[in-house]
């Protein structure tokens, strides 16, 4: 067991050196940093205009909820995970370096685990960090009022929920796209299918809703954002999943996908010529 842990740590170290903040992933960093710059700009503009009272703190909280639902969950984290996790195996295939790993006395399951953890560390650093910083910046121009909102109001619990949801999204989507990177030559096709499926979620029947990552994540968000008209008439309501089912459920689902990826990786063969 100790050997396994050391081997996973070895793969993790190697992968972090190769991929963490590498130049190739510039667009993933842009996805994560975009909202940070946006909220920073908001803070600076509002300070510049001496907080002309155009909006309230509650409105900013609602705007952040919209930003989180429609940007982070559906686009930023989704595409970020496509970029990070699909690349873990497929990128090595393209660079013709995967066989170096396969020639080492290392179980394939451990290689999958090590690579997943490396991708997860990057994704968590980027997206959870970005979520937290954006949340802290969006209402910064309210000064002491915002500090009070965070420390003595619902701010801290909201921040905790957003951070948790962002982390779970990275875990869930990470497992999905690691698997697609192993199974598909072009991970864009499964990514497009998953994207359509996840975005159709509000309109799906209750049973089908539950076969998606976004369904569990949405229920964990502290502020609900309704679907705008005219699409709201097509929304099918489903009972929200309780916290104690949603979080372990998503973790178990990710674990199952990872185990399946690990077992499948045992039978993979390299053919760089294809």
């Amino acid at each position: 067991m100790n050997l396994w842990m050391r081997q996973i740590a070895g793969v993790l170290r190697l992968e972090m050196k190769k991929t963490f903040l590498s130049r190739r992933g510039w667009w993933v960093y842009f996805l994560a940093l975009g909202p940070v710059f946006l909220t920073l700009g908001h803070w600076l503009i509002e300070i510049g205009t001496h907080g002309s009272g155009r909006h309230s703190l509650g409105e900013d909280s609602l705007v952040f909820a919209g930003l989180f639902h429609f940007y982070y969950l559906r686009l930023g984290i989704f595409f970020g995970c496509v970029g990070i996790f699909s690349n873990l195996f497929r990128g090595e295939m393209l660079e013709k370096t995967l066989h170096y790993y396969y020639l080492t006395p290392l179980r394939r399951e451990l290689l999958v685990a090590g690579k997943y953890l490396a991708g997860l560390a990057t994704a968590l650093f980027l997206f959870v960090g970005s979520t937290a910083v954006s949340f802290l910046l969006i209402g910064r121009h309210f000064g002491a009022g915002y500090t009070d909102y965070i420390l003595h109001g619902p701010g801290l619990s909201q921040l905790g929920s957003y951070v948790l949801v962002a982390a779970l999204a990275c875990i869930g989507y990470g497992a999905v796209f690691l698997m697609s990177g192993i199974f598909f030559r072009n991970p864009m096709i499964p990514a497009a299918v998953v994207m359509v499926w996840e975005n159709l979620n509000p309109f799906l029947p209750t049973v089908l809703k539950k076969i998606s990552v976004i369904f569990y994540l949405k229920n964990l968000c502290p502020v609900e954002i309704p679907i705008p008209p005219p699409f709201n008439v097509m929304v099918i309501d489903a009972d929200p999943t309780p916290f104690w089912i949603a979080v372990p459920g998503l973790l178990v689902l990710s674990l199952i996908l990872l185990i399946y990826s690990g077992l499948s990786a045992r039978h993979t063969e390299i053919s760089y010529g294809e």
Partner: protein
Amino acid sequence: MAVYKKTYRPYDGALTPSFTRFLVIPRYAFEEMRKSRFLTIFFIASFINPLVCALIIYVQHNASALNLLGVQNAGRLISINTTFFMNFLGWQSMLALFLAAFTGPGQVSPDLANNALSLYLARPFSRVEYVLGKMWILIVLMSLMTWVPGLLLFMLQAYLEQGWTWMQANTSLAVGIFVGSWVWLLILALMALALSAWVKWKPAAGALMFGVFFVAAGFGVAINGVQRTRWGHLLNISALIGSIWVQLFGANPAENNGGMFFRMPQGQELPLWCCWTALGVLCLICLYMLTRKIRGMEVVR
């Protein structure tokens, strides 16, 4: 002939006329594409919507068919008007985006990744012809999905309505379908080639296509939300295209804000010149990216 006499001799056969030379690239590319089962199925599936629309137009004008279906009042349910054609174009244009994202990245990146560009450019074949040839592949495929069936539907409607009179009264629809499609196709083709030239891994280039389209739109909405403005829509290509379509189709902006997937939210409209300028700037950026990468030689540092 003695071996020592076998020196360089230039090709002295007939040359392809210079104005059709760029078509050499699509000729081979189409053969290659036909081998992809996924692409073939996707391409065929993209004609389901035009068929359904043709059926709707036919049923609308066929009283006996309406009676047979027991929906005599269906004529009032779906009107064959600007909204109908714009929605048709919107759906088909979205499929064209998917097609461009799947096929576009494979156009230039293999030539660059394998240093094969010099093999093209060593022949009497210019960079412009190379780009034109590569664009032609996408434009032909996407044209068959967008304006070609659109104009056929237009003609079907004209034939079943009052013929020439209806056509004359609704010229703006045909103009909208044709010009509106070409605006979208040019942007897609340029974007696909530019990303393909800069990102050598095909799936990553495909992801970037989606990224530029969906993430930029989402980011634009985020800008609008956070800064309480409407200028974030300048990043939303679909909203910009929607605004331009409204103009080209001659629709009333108060009643119609674009086609399916390509809408500018009501009340957040941008001046039309801004939409045209934003798309023009996007095209220029793509052209600049292509100019930087499509070269017969590359300095590797």
